[in-house]
């Protein structure tokens, strides 16, 4: 873990303001935070008390990001805008709390965990204007998931974040801690309500996976064509920790940029990340992941599958830095371009910092090969049927690193989302 000296809340705010100042001078990355408002300051928290109270239109939006309220689950967290609506959990030893409550509860007194030891340790608050904004908003809201030692989720934990007002900026801070030997399966969906359209989602997520713990995280995004999205994710893996990360975006978006940083500090820790992007309309995506292999024998695999149509522009990145002894890493970026005006940049990068690392990458970008289409046509499929079959095969991600239940769930989500988005 990053052991740099702790900044006081005032110091954090101070520095964060400086970061914002600097960002302004550099044209704010094209997104001016002052163009958006939190929008729901007066709204009360926790207005719902059980899943039965979830309004139908919200359920519909949840469906679109693959969250089925009727599925068995270990817990459910729902947040609209910057206030949480519902937070229920039912698995002993696994806690799900709104982050503000968690910060009050876990203050380090009476031998309890001190959340301040984790806050901004996996994601630096002075990384950019978005983390700085989240630091200044002082944890607007978000979820805290805490798996105690050796505790395991039987069913996935579900979480849903909605942006529901036009012009809104949603600032979220999530912290997930998996203690030694614990196991967590999490499905999370984020979405813009159709009336919100012009909005900003800004999500900080910090994961701490301790010795021998395992986390699988499936995230589905469903945005509107005028929504800007800036997730900021940091993951710290200790000895033998395992992390599987599935990220799926198949909706249009205005501008989405994310690059989770995974620090594999523990011996034999491992990270498996798959990203699925279906870029359409005028969407601009810049997505990637950076895995830093530090612990001896640690390994990382970064896989991305990109489809681009209309005038979408997708940058698919992946960086693996091999620092430790006997570490291995592999990047696989494949993309299909399905229209004349779409564009995909595939940018794999591998850095070896000692001779005892094995790093590889493969990347391909192109249209669907004619001989593939003709092969399927020679089995009786029409041209469009052939293309559909090739595309769905291309999207058929490998869910085998996930636990069986979650793998099935993830496959279902991908199927559902892709059918809805691609017709």
């Amino acid at each position, binding site marked *: 873990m990053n052991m740099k000296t702790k900044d006081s809340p005032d110091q954090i705010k101070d520095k964060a303001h400086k970061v914002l100042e600097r960002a302004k001078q550099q044209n704010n990355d094209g997104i001016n935070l002052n163009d958006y408002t939190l929008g729901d300051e007066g709204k009360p928290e926790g207005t719902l008390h059980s899943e039965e109270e979830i309004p139908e239109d919200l359920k519909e939006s949840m469906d679109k990001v693959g969250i089925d309220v009727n599925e068995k689950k270990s817990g459910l967290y729902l947040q609209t805008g910057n206030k949480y609506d519902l937070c229920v959990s039912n698995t002993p030893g696994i806690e799900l709390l709104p982050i503000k409550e968690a910060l009050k509860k876990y203050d380090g007194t009476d031998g309890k965990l001190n959340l301040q030891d984790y806050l901004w340790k996996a994601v630096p608050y002075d990384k950019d204007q978005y983390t700085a904004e989240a630091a200044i908003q002082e944890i607007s809201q978000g979820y805290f998931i805490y798996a105690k030692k050796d505790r395991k989720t039987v069913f996935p934990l579900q979480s849903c974040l909605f942006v529901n007002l036009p012009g809104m900026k949603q600032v979220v801070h999530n912290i997930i801690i998996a203690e030694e030997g614990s196991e967590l399966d999490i499905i999370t969906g984020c979405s813009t309500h159709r009336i919100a359209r012009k909005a900003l989602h800004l999500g900080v997520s910090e994961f701490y996976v301790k010795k021998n713990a395992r986390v699988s995280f499936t995230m589905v995004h469903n945005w509107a064509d005028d929504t800007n999205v800036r997730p900021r994710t940091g993951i710290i893996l200790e000895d033998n920790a395992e992390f599987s990360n599935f990220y799926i975006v198949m909706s249009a978006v205005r501008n989405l940029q994310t690059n989770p940083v995974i620090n594999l500090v523990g011996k034999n820790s491992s990270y498996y990340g798959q990203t699925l992007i279906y870029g359409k309309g005028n969407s601009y995506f810049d997505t990637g992941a950076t895995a830093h292999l530090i612990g001896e024998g640690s390994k990382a695999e970064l896989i991305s599958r990109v489809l681009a149509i209309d005038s979408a522009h997708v940058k698919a990145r992946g960086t693996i830095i091999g620092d430790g002894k006997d570490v291995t890493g592999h990047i696989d970026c494949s993309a299909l371009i399905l229209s004349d005006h779409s564009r995909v940049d595939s940018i794999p990068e591998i850095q070896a910092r000692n001779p005892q690392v094995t790093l590889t990458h493969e990347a391909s970008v192109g249209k669907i090969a004619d001989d593939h289409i003709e*092969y399927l046509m*020679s089995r009786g499929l029409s041209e469009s049927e052939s293309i559909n079959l090739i595309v769905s*095969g291309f999207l*058929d991600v490998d869910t085998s690193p996930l636990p069986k239940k979650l793998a099935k769930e993830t496959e279902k989500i991908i199927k559902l989302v892709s059918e809805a988005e691609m017709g």
Partner: protein
Amino acid sequence: MSWLRIEKLAVEVRGKLILKDFNLNIEKGEVHVLLGPNGAGKTTLIKTILGFKNYKVVNGHIFFKDKDITNLPTNERIQMGIGVLFQHPPAINGLKLSKLLTVCSEKRGNNTECTDELSSDIQQLATRLKFSPEYINRDVNLGFSGGEVKRSEILQMMVLKPDLLLFDEPDSGVDVENVELIAKIMRELLDRDKIPSKQGKSGLIITHLGYILKFLGHITRAHIMMDGTITCSGDPALIINSIMKNGFEACRECVSCVENSSLLKEVDFTL
């Protein structure tokens, strides 16, 4: 009834004339073999019969079951009952062989009720071809060995059950044991062991070795193809023996096997 009739066919590939004045007639129940050196245009012929994009018919016609199919899209030709076993099919990332087989089966009119489970029929066929269930869940042709490619191709034919089968080098790159297995299935697919009046399937087998023919029973006719056209047609035993003895070049004029036929009896057709 004529199953496949090709008349005066000329075909261009990327501006280059590959097939010229090509004629062929295969009746229902007949199996023909097409022999020829590399580059003679054998695979071009197959891809033209299928109607692939880059194979431009500049002259002549192709008839299947007496219907002119020269300008039909590939899938419509397949739906009429043409099937093909490719020599080098492409590997398709993410498309499982099991899925492809299910799709073939649907095209054949079997209702599979949209399940992801492979029907027991297909599973049985796969077992006959020594494909384990986990194998059948691999991406089609991705990392398959030569024999596996051929077995996967023939498995698709077993599901599609076409009336006219085109085999492009079914025995190339396959070990002896697998050649026998593949030949056994080809023999079934081509109705070779039925009495002639019950033989409803036809076949065109492209090979440049002829070894597989040993297992296929009666072959109706053999043709030698060179430089994009048929130079010699006739009795399979005579023609194959002549090639074995004199090479393809001697067949350019199609006189060697006729002239020396009496001398060729010493050569065993079955190799």
